[in-house]
């Protein structure tokens, strides 16, 4: 018995043709993407670490910003992408959308973690503590938990199709919840700690700092997309291995 017989003809076409085209297209895209993202990161790091001036208040520690801010941006971007892909997967049943959402989660979680860690490293000299329960930090931490929960759900459900549906629902509920959580956390902290000890809105950023920041943000984004493609390709291959193994188990039952 072939494992695909339960699908209709059009579904079979979609399940095979689409990922096949994606594999061909992504194979051609990967090399240029690696070059662009690594190039941008190298140039960006040079400007960030060497060619830009230290801040007149924060000194050299300001350089953490060039990693911290792009990470935080990608943390948000990753979740939005995951939620959008999940919506597409639920509505249009596009086979690549599930893979896109699944692949985006660990990358987004990694950037969220990076944002939290660089934030802590930055916070120690500025606030005298590794961690402060400020509204912004707290909501990024909760975002990190949402990522982890999403990944844990994928890992917990054995059958891929069911896991995909459940995870997509979770990602969408999370997307609706994120603004509410954010609002409640802001309200929570301003309630307890009115005059905040620190403010992110310092002096308007100088142009010589804006250039490395923009380069790094662009480099990080390209890097994210590259990793996403690599992971999606891996997921498709994993799916093929699974199909082949199921077919082997089924074929062996016939003899």
């Amino acid at each position, binding site marked *: 018995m072939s494992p695909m017989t339960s699908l209709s003809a059009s579904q079979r076409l979609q399940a095979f043709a689409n990922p096949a085209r994606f594999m061909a297209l992504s194979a051609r895209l990967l090399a240029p993407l690696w070059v662009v993202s690594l190039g941008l990161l190298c140039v960006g790091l040079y400007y960030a670490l060497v060619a830009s001036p230290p801040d007149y208040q924060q000194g050299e520690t300001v350089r953490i910003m060039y990693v911290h801010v792009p990470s935080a941006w990608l943390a948000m971007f990753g979740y939005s992408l995951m939620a959008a892909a999940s919506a597409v997967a639920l509505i249009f049943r596009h086979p690549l959308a599930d893979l896109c959402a699944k692949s985006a989660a660990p990358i987004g979680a990694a950037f969220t973690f990076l944002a939290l860690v660089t934030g802590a490293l930055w916070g120690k000299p500025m606030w005298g503590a590794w961690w402060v329960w400020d509204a912004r930090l707290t909501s990024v931490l909760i975002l990190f938990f949402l990522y982890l929960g999403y990944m844990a759900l994928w890992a917990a459900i*054995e059958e891929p199709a069911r896991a995909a549906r459940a995870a997509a629902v979770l990602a969408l509920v999370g997307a609706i919840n994120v603004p509410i959580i954010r609002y409640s956390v802001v309200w929570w902290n301003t309630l307890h700690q009115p005059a905040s000890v620190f403010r992110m809105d310092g002096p308007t950023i100088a142009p010589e700092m804006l250039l490395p920041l923009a380069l790094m943000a662009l480099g990080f984004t390209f890097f994210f997309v590259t990793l996403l493609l690599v992971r999606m390709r891996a997921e498709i291959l994993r799916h093929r291995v699974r199909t082949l*193994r*199921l077919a*082997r*188990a*089924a074929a*062996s*039952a016939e*003899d």
Partner: protein
Amino acid sequence: MTTSDLRLTASNLACVRGGRIVFEGLSFSVTAGAALVLTGPNGSGKSSLLRQIAGLLDIASGTLALDGGDPELTLAEQAHYLGHLDALKPAMTVVETLRFWAAWLGGDAAANAPAALESMGLAPLADLPVGYLSAGQKRRLALARFVATPRPIWLLDEPTVALDAASIERLGAVMRAHLAGGGIIVGATHLDLGLAGAQTLRLGAEAAA
């Protein structure tokens, strides 16, 4: 194995579950190379008797004894038991599962695993996770551990569930080989397993008497 004068004897055996007497006054004796087939309607205690021999269910009264076995080991430690469940983990591969149970039940895992898989027709699937197998393949894997670890007494509760004709034939061959090697089989089954000269014990009649 000192199997030549092996004898499994039950005398006046009784089983009580949930305050109900399942059977009582049950006596039988099986010697090396013989099979005992348990028959009887549902709830007559076939599974309970097998679990009692396997040491998984308390004996209400009477005795169960194995003569001529390894004096260092208990009856349960010399028995293989296949219940309604296959005792398999979907995340482990076929060969890992077999190796683990062989190590656990006291066999030489590395040496016996290939032959055991071959006997049940599972050799081509050795590296697959158990989760990918069909119900019949899982049943065969559960039976493969009987071959992988030598234990003189085989307790089989409906071993043919989910098995196709070819697999039942394989099981019959393995069972005949076990009996020819001086083993003992006690099984509950609806199917004729092709064991020549098997004794039959009918449960259910005693309970009414």
